[in-house]
């Protein structure tokens, strides 16, 4: 039982990262019908922003050496700016483009960011030590866990509450929900398309930056493709949860996290190296049972 609770805590921690990334992807999909494959690269960029730009093998901390009160906003601002610039330069000129066009553009953006990082920082993985105090173990009753897991879960809950408050209670949040459901009608009521889309990119970037920091303090390694596996799992989470539903993105993120961790823990040892095959097998089963996700969006199905 204690073993199971321990695994559940791990699953919630991993699921939190997927849920945060899935929210970032789901938000842009909801508003723009853009499946943003560059989201993982926004995450990567946030991590690289911590060190001095140089191709040296040993990473020198820049922003990463600051106190967290300055570090977190700085990294968030950098990724948000990159997200907004991506919108202005790439996605705004493609506003009337089809969903596949937007998706292809996001692939292109993904490669541009990855190769940009390669050019500036070099190809070798870099070790980086961020918030090493967080890997200390803490005791909660019978469970032992690194502080980091608790921080990840806590930050995720906090951000989800903030996002919910923003979407339900503020004027821009209501505009975003309206735009996500029926963009044309929202515009006829005076909702500014470019502003709302920019806001979605900014929030998505902020979420990506948060994932960067939490992830890099877990792994301690920088590579130019580090964000991609998270974004891939997060994308799957948005599909499992129900494309276009933010609650679905969160539910899907946790579902995928729980599936992955529990398989790792309970598969027979011989089969563990094939964990992802089992994980995706389960995901296919979920999709066969519920093709439009765990929490389907009515707005998508009922478009007149």
């Amino acid at each position, binding site marked *: 039982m204690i073993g199971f609770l321990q695994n559940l805590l791990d699953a919630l921690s991993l699921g939190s990262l997927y849920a945060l990334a899935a929210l970032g992807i789901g938000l842009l999909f909801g508003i723009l019908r853009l499946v943003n494959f560059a989201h993982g690269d926004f995450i990567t960029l946030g991590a690289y922003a911590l060190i001095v730009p140089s191709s040296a093998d040993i990473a020198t901390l820049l922003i990463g050496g600051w106190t967290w009160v300055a570090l977190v906003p700085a990294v968030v601002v950098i990724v948000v700016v990159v997200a907004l610039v991506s919108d202005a330069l790439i996605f705004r000129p493609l506003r009337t483009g089809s969903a596949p066009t937007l998706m292809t553009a996001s692939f292109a953006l993904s490669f541009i960011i990855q190769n940009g990082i390669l050019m500036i920082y070099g190809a070798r993985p870099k070790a980086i030590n961020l918030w090493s105090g967080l890997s200390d173990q803490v005791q909660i009753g019978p469970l032992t866990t690194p502080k980091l897991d608790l921080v990840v879960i806590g930050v995720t809950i906090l951000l989800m509450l903030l996002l919910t408050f923003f979407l339900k209670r503020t004027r821009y949040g209501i505009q975003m*929900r309206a735009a996500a459901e*029926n963009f*044309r009608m929202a515009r*006829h009521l005076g909702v500014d*398309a470019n502003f709302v889309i920019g806001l979605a990119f900014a929030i998505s970037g902020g979420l990506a930056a948060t994932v960067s920091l939490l992830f890099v303090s877990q792994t301690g390694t920088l590579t130019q493709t580090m964000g991609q596996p998270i974004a891939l799992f997060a994308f799957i989470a948005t599909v499992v949860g129900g494309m276009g539903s933010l609650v679905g993105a969160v539910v899907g993120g946790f579902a995928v996290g729980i599936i992955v961790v529990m398989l790792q823990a309970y598969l027979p040892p011989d089969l563990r190296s094939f964990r992802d095959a089992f994980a995706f097998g389960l995901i296919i089963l979920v999709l066969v049972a519920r093709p439009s996700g765990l929490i389907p969006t009515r*707005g998508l199905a009922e478009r007149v």
Partner: protein
Amino acid sequence: MVAMLTVEGLSVNYGRLAALREVSIHVDPGELVCIVGPNGAGKSSLMNAIAGGVAPRAGSAKFENKELVGMRPEHIARLGMSLVPEGRQVFSTLTVEENLRLGTLIRRRSPDDELRLARIMRHFPRLNERRNAPAGTLSGGEQQMLVIGRALMTQPRLVMVDEPSLGLAPMIVDQVYEILRDLRQAEGLTLLINEQSSKRVLKYADRIYVLRGGVIRLEDSAENLQDGAAIVQAYFGFARPAANAGLPA
């Protein structure tokens, strides 16, 4: 009198298909003008082009002397003109109140917003009862009331309503028209309404255009068209009536 809305030579194409051919209409302040025509006549295209939803191929549309062609829909909405599109289009996951408030969110917060909301709730008591329900759970008639109320929240001087009767029971349609007429008096609105059936239009409109095949076939005051014969001719195109045909003998 200077017209509130002036459309001149407006043409809209979808690919090679011409939806509107050099349509010219005008709406004067305080008028209730109806555009009647069969399905596919181009009525929705006309409203969409005026509201910035589709880009016309040629022509101009002016609201209070301001050129609308080339403007974005969200900017047109802020001029004081509101479109109530076909098929109601409530935001089904937002509550009734959020749907209504959306109309004010584009402006600076003002105490007038609350008064306005209260006034609209008085016009539509049913919406007040359901104010915290998701709009998707309302009946068709209630949704039609909601989109009209929502349009009014933007403080428009001109409201364009695209086929308010579509998919509603005749009794509900009558209610919708009664409300539009009341609102027109209470709020000093100017109304442009698309409709397929001419019967109701003759009862409520000041002036009527008949649109068929993307071309205006007839324009006259409702008074002159009361016996309906000229409208029927223009609507079905069995004979080519002259403009201002008046009452046939």
